[in-house]
């Protein structure tokens, strides 16, 4: 593992695998034991791909509408899907044909975002009912119901300490919750990620991605800004990088790499750089460091990308694509066994 991390070099990124299923994908997550990548898509069927060879197993019958979000319980025993019918559904991740363990009505309206706690004992969900809920990842018991947002919840993320939960909404407010008490502790101002367009009379943007740096000192919130025409998706990607302690924005990461871009997900890499996935005129992986606001590297993916997940090894990335593919990109120089 150490050797792999040492080989991390985003400038050498290359796609090593691509696996197709039936419909455009909305989300992907790699299980904590790195056996599978599960994708949810524009239908009611999730897909599990074996990371070793891409073998696909369809996961159907758990929900209606579209799959939107994913999380795992401890050591990946269960993969939990969140869908636009408001349900969260537990599946046995590694069974030959993953069956539904349970399905719970989690939100009125879409489940937009899910995240599992660092130890996998809890999952958090955020939805269109403006509520954040925390669930026992094994039993499905509801542990917390967190009120306070006044718009759709676009992102949820556990703090790496396991003490706190963060949730970001359409209007650019990030709330920090104390998981012991369920009380709100403080808010981060990410309103630059929200646009109200007076002509089209719509709210647009939102905190679409949250990522905490490995040292816990920096919080990144991604989305979009400069949106003169939301209905046409005319906007630019933006990441606000907060100092965790002071809550001040210490960097605004932008890019000219992609037009009409939006940051769908963020991940901090072992070298301290920040990786984001954007759609727009292209699907693209973007890389920033603290030295400048603009990206220091960009890797164009073969198709529009809507989500990504960093492999536990820190050098592989799974991405969800509109052309029905899950792709695996390796962030190192090409090697013979890079698949």
């Amino acid at each position, binding site marked *: 593992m150490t050797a792999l991390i040492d080989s991390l070099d985003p400038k050498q990124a290359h796609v090593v695998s691509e696996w197709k299923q039936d*419909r*455009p994908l909305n989300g992907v997550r790699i299980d904590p034991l790195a056996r599978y990548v599960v994708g949810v898509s*524009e*239908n*009611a069927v999730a897909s599990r791909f074996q990371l070793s060879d891409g073998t696909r197993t369809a996961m159907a019958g758990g929900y*209606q*509408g*579209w799959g*939107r979000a994913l999380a795992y319980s401890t050591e990946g025993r269960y993969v939990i899907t969140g869908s*636009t*019918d408001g349900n969260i559904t537990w599946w046995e991740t590694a069974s030959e044909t993953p069956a539904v363990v349970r399905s719970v009505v989690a939100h009125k*309206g*879409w489940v937009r975002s899910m995240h599992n706690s660092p130890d996998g004992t809890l999952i958090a969900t955020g939805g*269109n009912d403006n509520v954040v809920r925390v669930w026992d990842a094994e039993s499905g018991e509801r542990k917390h119901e967190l009120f306070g947002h006044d718009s*759709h919840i676009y992102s949820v993320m556990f703090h790496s300490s396991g003490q706190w939960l963060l949730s970001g909404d359409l209007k650019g407010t990030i709330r920090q919750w104390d998981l012991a008490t369920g009380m709100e502790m403080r808010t981060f101002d990410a309103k630059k990620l929200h646009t109200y367009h*007076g*002509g*089209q*009379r*719509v*709210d*647009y943007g939102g905190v679409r991605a949250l990522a905490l740096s490995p040292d816990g000192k920096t919080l990144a919130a991604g989305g979009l800004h400069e949106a003169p025409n*939301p*209905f*046409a*998706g005319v906007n630019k990607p933006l990441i606000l990088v907060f100092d965790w302690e002071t809550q001040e924005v210490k960097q605004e990461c932008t890019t000219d790499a992609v037009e*009409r871009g939006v940051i769908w997900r963020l991940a901090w890499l072992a070298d301290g750089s920040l990786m984001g996935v954007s*759609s727009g005129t292209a699907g693209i992986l973007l890389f920033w460091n603290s030295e400048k606001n603009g990206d220091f590297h960009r890797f164009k993916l073969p198709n*529009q990308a809507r989500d990504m997940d960093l492999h536990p090894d820190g050098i592989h990335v799974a991405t969800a694509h*509109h052309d029905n593919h899950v792709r695996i990109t390796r962030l190192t120089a090409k090697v013979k066994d890079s698949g």
Partner: protein
Amino acid sequence: MTLPYPCQSSDHTVARRGFLGTMAATGAGAIVGGLGAFTQPVLADQLKHQQKRLVIWDMHGGLSQLESWDPKPGTETGGPFLSIPTSVPGIHVCELLPETAKQMHHLCLIRGVNTKEDDHGKGRYKVMTGRKQVPGASDPQIGAVAARTLMPEDYALPGHIVISPGGGGGRSNDASYLGPRYASVSLGGGKPPQNSALPDNITVEVDAARQEMRRRMNERFLTRRRTSIAEAYGHSYEQALQMMSQRDVFDVSKESTQDQERYGKHDLGRNALLARRLLEHGTPVVKVTHSNYDTHHENFNFHIEQLGEVDQAFSCFVADLADRGMLESTLIVVLSEFGRTPRVNYRYGRDHWSKAWSVVMAGCRIPRGATYGETNDKGTEVIDGEVDHANLFHTYLAAAGVDTTGSFNIEGREVPIADPASEPIHDILG
């Protein structure tokens, strides 16, 4: 001396006799000039009671039929939303309209609309005029035609009102050859017409004196040079005075706090409530615009936002008109310039789609709790009951009691009220 109108038309004189619709319209013996649009003279009280009104909900930009009236859940074109049952067994609508679903027993969904025009401007022209746009030609929009045929001659206020979420006021040019009297007056932002309050530095007495002076001068002018334009000019002054004296009609804040809460504390809620208020005060034609649905990008997010407002306001509006017995005499139409593509694009958007979309009607002669027309399982084509803009234009007017085989006499030229090559949807006209 009274000089004849230059056009030698009787249109301008018959207009004074009133064009109030009745329930019983016939297709035979239509009299050129508009009177033939209605069949039986009735007493004034009955006219008042039976005066037909038209209210259009204009979903600007292209409302998605799949996220509203013709959902296709579980298909590759259906999008992420589910469908829900309505108050009429067997009819489902998109889950974004839960309150409207409870009013389905008042509505008629026209699900087989094919207008064959995916351009905003041209599509809007077709839908609003019932005709294809021809270079050099200009046709009156449905609101103006309805005002021309439904508005009592003695109606003092503007008979054709457009309530939009923003913008200014003033008259539009949507009446074409029907003339400015039938053109819409805009209430931008739902506010009363511009300049309809007496300036602070002019007293009522001073204003009355200057109006009297204007009238005398006008009469003197008309005795020598009476023209339709000059008369319309004078009429607009009188209408403005009436409007000033009845300014409260346009003031939605006069409605109860409870109703303002019910309709929603947003532009559309206020505008829908204002529409109800105007209709209750006898305005023959009202259009409420809701902007915007041109969602090439993130169609689903934006339809959640927009239809949340629509569902609240529209369901209250329909329920209130039904409760007040006004659906008997008021035709509600929900339209757009087209629908949106069944195919979802890579930006989670839907593009323009005129080939298979939906219009909703309620009231007057329209059957309640019904659907007409059908699209295929993916919503890409009409497979039964296909209708177009011309059929719909005929139907709106026919439902309000207008004989659409009639003509307007415009400066000696007979102009059909609606496209003579088309006809109403007879199956839904009870």
